[in-house]
């Protein structure tokens, strides 16, 4: 808590001169409890001065950017040979045509869609369709396949997601010091974020107030009904993650930080992956050794049926949700 306070204090002292967006005039910072108009009344001269400085700085930046771009263009023009551009275009066109011809010739070679003697219509698919309901207890055959017959594969997919999140964390996470002090890079990223992202946008907040609960409920429904109909952990988790991202966009990191921090992310993904691994290794162990697993399949079509598919769906949904949200926050400001 102490750490956060000093962090925000530093940030707010930065924020007073960061005024730039004309639409933000009334609502530049509700978090300071000091709207812009009050600031203007308290010290009109300083305020105007800061504004002018800001504008001048921006103008300079703009000009410098244009100059740099122009010089780059000129450099490219000087370096390239005259014949290079048409030859390059010609080669590009040739490559594209060759690729199209190659791919189309492959497509023509494929067996006709839906024919009975296709190699995909073999005894594996037949067995899944005939015995699937009886063996997995899932009305939705796809869920029965990916979370029962091929659950090891789905575990690999969740792990791939987790590894991807780890590498993005390694690349983009801005570290804070061990003693709770805020690093300059974090402060800069935070300032950048508050500068460019919408803050206290009334329209977005109203829309989010209406939509976020509905989106989260719908995502949970998709996850929980994955074994009864279309849906499952991956799609439901994606919907819930999108709801969280919308909430974050509307209300900012301080609100989401109350229930979803970096620690939450770590624990939820870890626990969900471990639960998945333990549950599934138990069922693989029993199945491989012809033991009685003790997991009842229930009546097909009931919400608590089909054995392990429901908890596995919940695990996958949690992992996908956390990782979507983490990706968004990491790409946005390098932390949660």
């Amino acid at each position, binding site marked *: 808590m102490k750490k956060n306070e000093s962090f925000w204090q530093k940030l707010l002292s930065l924020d007073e001169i960061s005024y*730039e*967006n*004309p*639409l*933000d005039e009334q609502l530049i910072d509700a978090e300071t409890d000091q709207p812009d108009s009050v600031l203007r009344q308290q010290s009109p001269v300083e305020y105007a001065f800061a504004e002018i400085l800001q504008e001048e700085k*921006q*103008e300079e930046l*703009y000009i410098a950017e244009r100059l740099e771009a122009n010089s780059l263009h000129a450099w490219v023009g000087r370096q390239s040979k005259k014949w290079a551009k048409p030859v390059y275009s010609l080669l590009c066109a040739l490559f594209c045509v060759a690729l199209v011809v190659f791919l189309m010739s492959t497509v023509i070679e494929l067996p006709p869609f839906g024919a009975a003697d296709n190699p995909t219509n073999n005894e594996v698919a037949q067995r899944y369709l005939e015995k699937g309901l009886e063996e997995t207890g899932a009305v939705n055959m796809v869920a029965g396949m990916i979370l029962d017959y091929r659950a090891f594969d789905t575990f690999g997919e969740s792990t791939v997601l987790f590894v991807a999140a780890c590498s993005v964390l390694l690349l983009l996470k801005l570290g804070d010091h061990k003693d709770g002090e805020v690093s300059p890079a974090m402060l800069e990223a935070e300032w950048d974020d508050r500068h*460019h992202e*919408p803050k206290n*946008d009334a*329209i*977005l907040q109203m*829309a989010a107030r*209406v*939509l976020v609960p509905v989106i989260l409920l719908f995502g949970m429904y998709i996850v929980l009904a994955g074994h009864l109909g279309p849906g499952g952990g991956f799609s439901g988790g994606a919907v819930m993650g999108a709801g969280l991202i919308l909430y974050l966009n509307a209300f900012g990191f301080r609100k989401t930080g109350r229930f979803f921090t970096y620690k939450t992310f770590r624990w939820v993904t870890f626990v969900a992956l471990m639960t998945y691994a333990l549950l599934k290794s138990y069922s693989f162990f029993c199945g491989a050794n012809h033991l009685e697993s003790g997991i009842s399949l229930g009546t097909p079509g009931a919400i608590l049926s089909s054995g392990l598919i429901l908890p596995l769906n919940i695990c996958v949904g949690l992992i996908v949700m956390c990782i979507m949200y983490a990706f968004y926050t990491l790409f946005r400001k390098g932390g949660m």
Partner: protein
Amino acid sequence: MGEWIVFGISALLLITGLFLMLSAVVGQYRFKYVLNRMHAASMGDSMGLGLVLLSLCLASGDGWLIAKYLLVVLFVWLTSPTAGHLIARLEIATDSRYQDEMEMIEK
């Protein structure tokens, strides 16, 4: 006879909606400035999608299906203007030369 009238109306609505969608796509590629593009895109989202789903409502005639279509329309009509508003905000916030492209009425 009644069926044919309903079919005709729904087909007309569907074609009008598809035409609006198509013009929205053309506008996306023809306009150069982000706010003009946004105008074109929002037309396809609101009017085009609304007409298409209205025609589907007429054609299906099933109560639950109509309710679901109306939910889709409600969702898109809530989200699409919000997204457009955010894009416009971002344009104003990041492009310091936006007044070259348009006039903004000062309050």
